[in-house]
C-alpha cells in the first residue's frame, strides 16, 4: 500500500442514519405494511411496541433503526423498523416466544450492548419495550510544535484502556489527521478511559532494499499493474545514512533540522506532552461527553543509532524481517505504535537510525497482534501507514468477549519463517548503541488429542480439508503473545498449534461438533480450568482434551422489590477467586445472562463446578470484566454447584453492589 493512500471505511449502518435512504429501501419492499418484516414464517397475533430514548436526556430518538430477533416454534424472525418522531416502534403479527430481543442503532449513538428482552405470550401486546441509546463522545484539540506552530497533517490516535482477562490492556482506537489549523477531532467514542497520542515511526532499511519492499508491494502485483499502464512512483522521503548503508524514512510529519551535529526527531507523544503511555494524562469520557482542549505539543529530541545482529539459525531466514522498537510497557500495540522499525539486512545485521533516549523492547516476530476498539455504528478513521517489510502473511481477527464493547483482536503476519521469534529489552541513552544481539528462538508447538465421549455425527465429506479452528489465547490477555491458531486434523482426532511464545495460554474451540470440553489434561495434571504454560520453551505434547455431549442447565427467576424483575442480568462466576483473571479472551466459567421481561433467566453453557450467581441491573451486565467487581459481588452472591446432566433451579433477587453503579453514566 502506498504510504499516503487514505483508507476510509464505513460500516453498513452508517447511512441508515438518513431516513430518506432507509425509506427508499422500505419502498422497494413493495409497500408492505409496517412491521411486516422479512418473513411470515410463523405469523401470530402478538405485538411488541416501545420507545427508543437518548440515555443522556431521556428524550425519544427518531430515526433509530430497531431490530427484532427471535421467534417461536423453531423459526427465527428478523425485522427492522425505524422509530417515528416520538421515538416509537411497533412489531406486529408475532407468535408467542420467550426469547425476543430488540436492539437499536442510530448514527452517533451506541447501544452499550444493551438490548430489550421480551417474553411474549400468545396474543399479547407488550407495550413497554424500552431501548436506551447513548450519544457517542468526542475528543478534539490542537497539535503544536515546540514553537507553538500548528502541526498540519499529523496522525492522531486514541488508545483505549480496556480490561482483557481481568487485566488492564491498551487497545488501539480510531486514527485521524490534523487539519491546516493543527486541529483534530475523534468522534464515536464510548464512555471510557482514553490516551491521546501522536505516533511517529522512524523506518530504517538497508540501502539495497528494493522499491517494492519499501512500499509494501509485491513485485508480481506491481508488474501486473504496470502492464495495465500504472507506474510506481518512487518514495521521495528518504535519507541516506552517513555510512551509505542504510536509508531512513521518517515519521509522519516534518522532522526538525539537526541541532549542530546532533540529529533530532519528534518522538511519539502522548497528551499533554508525555513520551510513553504510562506517563500520559488519561482522558475519562462520560456518555456523550465532548472534550475540546486535549492538546498535544511535540518537542524534538536528540536521537542516536541502535545497531546489531540477529542471532538465529539459518532456517529462521532473518533477512528482510521487520524489527519493531516499542516503548517498554506498550509491547502489545501493533503497526504504527513503534518508535522505530528496521529491516534486517542480508547478513543478519540491523540498524535503527534515529532513536530517542528511553526504555524499549526490540520485537523480532513475523506476526503481530493488537487490540482495537472501534464503535460499531461508523468508522471513518484514517489508517496508519505500514512499515516497510510488512508483506503478505495474512491478517485476521475476532471479538474479545472479555473486553469493553467494540473491542476486537487483530493480527497480521509477514512472509517468511514464522516459527522463530525473539525480543530484547534495551535502554537507549545519549550515545549510539552498537553490537546489540537479538536472539531468536524457535517457538513452542502444542499437540493434542481429542477424546470424544459420544458418537460423532457423520463427518463432513472427506477431502474438503479443514477441520475445526482452535486457538491458543494469551491467558493474561497480553496482546504481545499473539493468537496462535491451528486446526483439528480432518482425518484424526488431533490438533496442532504452532507459534506459542513464552507465556500462558488457554485453549478455545469455535465448535467441537456438538460437544464441549469436559477435561484438559497434560503430563498427568488437570488443566481444565487453568492455562497451559509455554514458558519453558519446550514443546507441549500429548495434551488430552476430553469432549462430552453432556450439558448443564441453571434456570430461575429474578425478583426486584417483591415483584418479578423485568430486565437486568444474572452474572455467574467461579467461586474460586483465582479464576477471576487469567482466563483468556472468552472465559468458560463466567457468564452474564439476560433477565427476560417475565423475570426468567437461564444458563446452559457453564461447565461443572462451584459458582456464585448474582442478579444485577442491566448497566452492570459487563461489570464482571473487572475482578474488583467480582470481589465486591462475591459476598452478596448465591452459591451454586453445577454438575453434568444437572438442571438446577435458583431464584435470585436483584442486588446493588456497593461501589458499582453501572456503566450508565
Amino acid at each position, binding site marked *: *500500500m*502506498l*504510504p*499516503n*493512500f*487514505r483508507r476510509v471505511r464505513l460500516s*453498513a449502518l452508517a*447511512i441508515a442514519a438518513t431516513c430518506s*435512504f*432507509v425509506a427508499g*429501501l*422500505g419502498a422497494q*419492499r413493495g409497500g*408492505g405494511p409496517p412491521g*411486516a*418484516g*422479512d418473513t411470515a414464517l410463523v*405469523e401470530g*397475533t402478538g405485538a411488541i411496541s416501545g420507545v427508543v430514548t437518548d440515555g443522556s436526556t431521556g428524550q425519544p430518538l427518531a430515526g433509530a433503526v430497531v431490530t427484532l430477533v427471535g421467534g417461536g416454534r423453531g423459526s427465527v424472525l428478523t425485522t*427492522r*423498523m*425505524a422509530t417515528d418522531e416520538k421515538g*416509537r416502534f411497533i412489531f*406486529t403479527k408475532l407468535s408467542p416466544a420467550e426469547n425476543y430481543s430488540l436492539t437499536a442503532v442510530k448514527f*452517533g449513538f451506541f447501544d452499550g450492548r444493551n438490548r430489550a428482552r421480551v417474553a411474549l405470550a*400468545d396474543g399479547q*401486546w*407488550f*407495550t413497554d419495550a424500552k431501548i436506551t441509546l447513548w450519544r*457517542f463522545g*468526542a475528543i478534539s484539540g490542537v497539535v503544536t510544535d515546540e*514553537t507553538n*506552530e500548528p502541526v*498540519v*497533517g499529523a496522525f492522531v490516535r486514541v488508545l483505549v484502556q480496556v480490561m482483557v482477562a481481568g487485566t488492564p490492556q491498551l487497545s488501539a482506537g480510531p486514527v485521524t489527521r490534523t*487539519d*491546516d489549523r493543527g486541529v483534530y477531532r475523534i*468522534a464515536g467514542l464510548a464512555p471510557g478511559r482514553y490516551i491521546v497520542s501522536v505516533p511517529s515511526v522512524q523506518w530504517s532499511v538497508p540501502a539495497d532494499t528494493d522499491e517494492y519492499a519499501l512500499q509494501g508491494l509485491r513485485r508480481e502485483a506491481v508488474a501486473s*499493474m504496470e502492464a495495465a499502464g*500504472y*507506474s510506481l*512512483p518512487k518514495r*521521495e*522521503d*528518504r*535519507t*541516506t545514512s*552517513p555510512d*551509505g548503508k542504510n536509508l531512513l524514512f*521518517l515519521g*509522519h*510529519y*516534518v*522532522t*526538525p533540522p*539537526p541541532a549542530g551535529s546532533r*540529529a*533530532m*526527531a519528534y518522538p511519539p507523544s502522548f497528551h499533554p506532552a508525555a513520551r510513553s503511555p504510562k506517563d500520559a494524562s488519561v482522558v475519562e469520557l462520560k456518555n456523550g461527553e465532548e472534550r475540546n482542549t486535549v492538546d498535544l505539543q511535540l518537542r524534538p529530541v536528540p536521537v542516536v543509532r541502535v545497531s546489531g545482529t540477529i542471532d538465529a539459525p539459518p532456517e529462521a531466514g532473518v533477512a528482510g524481517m521487520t524489527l519493531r522498537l516499542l516503548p517498554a510497557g506498550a509491547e502489545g500495540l501493533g503497526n504504527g505504535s513503534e518508535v522505530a522499525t528496521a529491516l534486517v539486512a542480508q547478513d543478519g545485521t540491523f540498524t535503527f537510525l534515529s532513536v530517542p533516549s528511553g526504555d524499549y523492547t526490540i520485537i523480532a516476530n513475523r506476526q503481530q497482534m493488537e487490540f482495537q476498539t472501534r464503535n460499531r455504528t461508523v468508522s*471513518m478513521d484514517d489508517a496508519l501507514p505500514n512499515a516497510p517489510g510488512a508483506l503478505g502473511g495474512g491478517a485476521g481477527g475476532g471479538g474479545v468477549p472479555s473486553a469493553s464493547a467494540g473491542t476486537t483482536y487483530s493480527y497480521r503476519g509477514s512472509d517468511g519463517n514464522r516459527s522463530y521469534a525473539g525480543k530484547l529489552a534495551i535502554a537507549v541513552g545519549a550515545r549510539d548503541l552498537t553490537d546489540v544481539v537479538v536472539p531468536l528462538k524457535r517457538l513452542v508447538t502444542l499437540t493434542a488429542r481429542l477424546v470424544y465421549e459420544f458418537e460423532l455425527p457423520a463427518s463432513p465429506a472427506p477431502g474438503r480439508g479443514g477441520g475445526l479452528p482452535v486457538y491458543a489465547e494469551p491467558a493474561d490477555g497480553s496482546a504481545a503473545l499473539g493468537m496462535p491458531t491451528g486446526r483439528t486434523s480432518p482425518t484424526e482426532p488431533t490438533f496442532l498449534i504452532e507459534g506459542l511464545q513464552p507465556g500462558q495460554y488457554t485453549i478455545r474451540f469455535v465448535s467441537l461438533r456438538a460437544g464441549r470440553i469436559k477435561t484438559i489434561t497434560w503430563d498427568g495434571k488437570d488443566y481444565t480450568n487453568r492455562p497451559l504454560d509455554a514458558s519453558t520453551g519446550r514443546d507441549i505434547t500429548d495434551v488430552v482434551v476430553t469432549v462430552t455431549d453432556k450439558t448443564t442447565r441453571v434456570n430461575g427467576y429474578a425478583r426486584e422489590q417483591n415483584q418479578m424483575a423485568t430486565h437486568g442480568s444474572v452474572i455467574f462466576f467461579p467461586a474460586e477467586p483465582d479464576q477471576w483473571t487469567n482466563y483468556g479472551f472468552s472465559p468458560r466459567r463466567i457468564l452474564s445472562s439476560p433477565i427476560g421481561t417475565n423475570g426468567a433467566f437461564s444458563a446452559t453453557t457453564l461447565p461443572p463446578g462451584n459458582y456464585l450467581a448474582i442478579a444485577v441491573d442491566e448497566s452492570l451486565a459487563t461489570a464482571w470484566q473487572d475482578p474488583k467487581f467480582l470481589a465486591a459481588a462475591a459476598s452478596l452472591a448465591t452459591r451454586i454447584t453445577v454438575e453434568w446432566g444437572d438442571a438446577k433451579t435458583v431464584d435470585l433477587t436483584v442486588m446493588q453492589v456497593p461501589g458499582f453503579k453501572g456503566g450508565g453514566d
Partner: protein
Amino acid sequence: MLMTSRLGVAALSAIVLIAPASARQTNTARIAGTVVTSDATPQPVRRAIVRLGGQGAEGRSAVTDDQGRFALTGLPAGRFTMTASKPAHLTTAYGASAPGRPGTAVTVAVGQSIANLRLVLPRGAAIAGTIRDRAGTPLPAVSIRVIRIDAPRSSAPPATNDVLTDDRGMFRAFGLLPGTYAVAAVPRLVSVTGAVAVPSASEMDALFRRPRPRSISSTRTSTSRRAPASAMSC
C-alpha cells in the same frame, strides 16, 4: 488510482544529508537559501521541505530551520530545479511566478557555493462548512468534493482528495489554490442487508390506535385476549 497517487507532502522529509564516501571528491557544491511566505512583508517559513530535481539530485531534500533557512550540501556539478513545500501550503518551484508554474534551474560548478536563494511558499486557502439534510439535521460521513471551476488549461487542476463530514456534519478542505470552486456533497450508497420498514406518522398512529394489533391476513381468530391497558397510553 492507487498506483498513480502522489506521495503526500505530509508524508515526510529528511535530516542530515551526507553523500556516500566514494562521491565526496566531486560532490562539493552547495546550494543554500531561505523559504518565505507570499505576504507583502515576506515571513520565513520554518519546517518547509526543499526538494532538488535534476541529474545527481535524486532524493535530495532539506528542511528549513526556524529562520526559514536551508542548505543542500555535497552536490555534484549540474543544473538543478528546486521546489518548496509544506503541508497546507502551495508547492512552488524556485523562480516560478505562481504555484504550479515552471521554475528556473540553478547551475552550480564543482565546489561552487550558491547562497541566498529565495523560494516563495504561499499558504493554501481553505473551504469549510456544514452539510445538513432538509430538516436541518447535520449529516455525518458525507463525502465532500471541492472542484476548481476556473482552472486555466495551463496549470494542473488541483484535484483535492475527498473529505468526509465529521460527526457534526462539518468539513474542511485546505491547501487550495486561489480560484473559484464548486463544492459537491457526494452521497454514499451503502448496501444494507435486509429491509427497514419506515412507517409514516399516520401509519404509526393507526397502528397504535387500534385496540390490539391486527394482521392484514385472516388470522384474526384469537382476538379474545385483550391488550394490556397500558397500551392506550402510547
